[in-house]
């Protein structure tokens, strides 16, 4: 076993041992501990746990790579996935915490006094969470297969086993404390390589400042100017101004991601774990600090990785890398199929340009930008080993949060809330553990056999959260008169139009060939891509709800009183079931 592999095993299994230790220490004994960690998590702890809960395999592995290739256009992910927390902190979290229940569908049921509304919320929650989990499971399998050279399937089984131990044993309590540990692992793993690379390129150890500094090669040229120059010379769009599909599309995309972020149940649920309204407001702030640590480093990682990659292939303009002399990391990633070279002009050198006809780097997978970045920059082996543990921490922590959202929606909302109201606490706890085990098996199965539509599903998860859950919650708090009938009508039409738009451009249930309008710019409504459509769904939801409200009469007096009570912090107790 070589040194790198040894370090990777130590990093990965060392962190697993820590998670198991925490799981044993934080076993859940009651439904309150299982659903809301007993309700006595501090804001600082909760902020860290939200950070890990939120930052998934996609944030850790894919986001910097996306920015790397999209340049300025990648800003939609940076602003969208952080700006949502401003909405959450001011429009939802404090009031939901004051109301003090275990789950999001339960809040919807109380506020809209309607079992239909609760079921609609459960369905949206399950679809959004399951589609999200597939990505995490794939992330676990990929991390194992690339870093430890374990079979993808075996890697996924190990991941399922680890999540099972701490999520099923500990419920929200175990998940919270492991997420805190996972946040520390992932943020170290993300920032340390970035610090090294920023030092190498600019001499500034802080990546956020390095991105705006001059290169340390003595030329005195700013890093971003150099990058703009290099990419435009090769025929790509200018890095700092390339706007993905136009301003309106970026605008709608950012807004959809923000609203979707604020409406994702596995994040909202974390605000039920703190003891007071004040603590809920504070934990939103801490969460955003911890998330921003990664999100402000990501653009530096993206830009620097792009520059490093281009510099490796063409160190001096016109003097391209000879394929036979390519570095070791190049060979390693070729083996995985994520990098592919085709010597089109037969000169034995690598030409990497924008023009598809002469470009010889026929495949450069975006994920490489984070995964191979340390190797491209010649960083020490222990740094590369950390990246493996960090990627796994990001995937596992998000998967656990999603699994809890799913199992609580089924055991607490469907079983206890609707089908078997006289279920005892002990049986409910047992039921939620069984449901969670089943959810792990289902998501593992989906990770092993990713449905053909897996790529389109993230858009669907955000679209559903943005067009159904967020508007329903917001109107529930800010419009006292909003009635159950009107809210259900709004939710259904919001989801309806979003699904219709996604399906008409991406195929019904993402089955190729069934789309009735092509997935191309000219067919899009005002040039808005299906991924960016959630905000239109949300607007439809709000409009339909207010129109129906006008014709069907307002919510009864006791509900209006309930809303008034929700708006003031006084009298909040720990989250409870009834």
């Amino acid at each position: 076993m070589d040194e790198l592999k040894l370090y990777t095993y130590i990093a990965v299994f060392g962190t697993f041992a820590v998670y198991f230790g925490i799981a044993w220490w934080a076993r859940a004994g009651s439904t309150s501990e299982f659903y809301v960690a007993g309700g006595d998590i501090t804001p600082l702890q909760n902020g860290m746990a939200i950070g890990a809960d939120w930052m998934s395999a996609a944030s850790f592995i894919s986001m910097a790579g996306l920015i790397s290739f999209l340049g300025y256009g990648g800003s939609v992910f940076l602003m969208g996935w952080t700006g949502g927390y401003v909405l959450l902190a001011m429009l939802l979290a404090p009031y939901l915490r004051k109301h003090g229940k275990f789950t999001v569908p339960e809040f919807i049921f109380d506020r809209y006094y309607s079992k239909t509304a609760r079921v609609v919320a459960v369905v949206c929650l399950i679809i959004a969470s399951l589609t999200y989990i597939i990505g995490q499971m794939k992330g676990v399998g990929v991390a194992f297969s690339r870093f430890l050279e374990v079979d993808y399937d075996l890697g996924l089984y190990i991941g399922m086993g680890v999540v099972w131990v701490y999520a099923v044993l500990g419920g929200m309590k175990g998940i919270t404390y492991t997420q805190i540990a996972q946040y520390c692992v992932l943020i170290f793993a993300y920032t340390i390589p970035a610090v090294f690379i920023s030092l190498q390129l600019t001499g500034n150890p802080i990546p956020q400042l390095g991105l705006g500094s001059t290169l340390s090669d003595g030329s005195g040229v700013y890093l971003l100017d150099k990058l703009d120059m290099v990419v435009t010379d090769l025929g790509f769009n200018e890095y700092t101004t390339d706007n993905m599909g136009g301003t309106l599309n970026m605008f709608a995309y950012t807004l959809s991601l923000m609203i979707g972020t604020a409406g994702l149940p596995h994040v909202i649920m974390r605000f039920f774990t703190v003891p007071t309204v004040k603590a809920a407001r504070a934990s939103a702030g801490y969460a955003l600090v911890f998330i921003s640590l990664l999100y402000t480093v990501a653009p530096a990682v993206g830009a620097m990785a792009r520059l490093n990659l281009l510099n490796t292939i063409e160190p001096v303009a016109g003097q391209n890398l000879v394929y036979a002399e390519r570095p070791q990391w190049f060979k390693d990633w070729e083996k995985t199929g994520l990098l592919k070279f085709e010597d089109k002009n037969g000169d034995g050198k690598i030409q990497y340009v924008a023009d598809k006809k002469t470009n010889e780097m026929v495949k450069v997978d975006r994920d490489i930008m984070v995964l191979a970045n340390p190797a491209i920059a010649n960083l020490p082996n222990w740094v590369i080993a950390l990246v493996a543990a960090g990627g796994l921490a990001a995937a596992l922590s998000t998967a656990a949060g999603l699994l809890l959202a799913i199992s609580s929606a089924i055991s607490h909302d469907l079983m206890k809330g609707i089908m078997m109201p006289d279920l005892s606490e002990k049986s409910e706890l047992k039921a939620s553990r069984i449901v969670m085990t089943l959810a792990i098996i289902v998501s593992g199965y989906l990770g092993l056999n990713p449905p053909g539509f897996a790529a389109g599903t993230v858009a669907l998860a955000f679209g559903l959260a943005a067009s159904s859950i967020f508007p329903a919650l917001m109107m529930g708090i800010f419009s006292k008169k909003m009635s159950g009938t009107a809210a259900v009508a709004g939710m259904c039409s919001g989801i309806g139009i979003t699904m219709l738009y996604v399906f008409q451009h991406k195929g019904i249930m993402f089955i190729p060939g069934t789309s009735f309008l092509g997935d191309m710019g000219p067919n899009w409504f005002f040039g808005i891509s299906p991924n960016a459509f959630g905000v239109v769904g949300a607007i439809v939801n709000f409009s339909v709800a207010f129109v129906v409200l006008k014709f069907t009469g307002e919510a009864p007096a006791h509900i209006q009183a309930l809303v008034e009570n929700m708006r003031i912090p006084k009298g909040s107790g720990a989250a409870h079931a009834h």
Partner: protein
Amino acid sequence: MDNEKTYWGENLRLIFICLTIWFVVSYGFGLLLVEPLNTIRLGGYKLGFWFAQQGSIYTFVGLVFWYSAKMNQLDKKYNVEE
């Protein structure tokens, strides 16, 4: 009861101020006004690009803490704290 109504009114005003700033730094500076702002430089950053990839995020963090501190004061002022 009136006390609680004024409290809610002040809260709404505060949210409105925060969300205006939220909108201006991200959608305003980062998207709609990005081209004119890009003519100004902040070190190696074009200013519009900086707002889109750095500045808006720092502002978000500041906003959430400021809102939270202001609300804690309001809770005390109107005697509705926990």
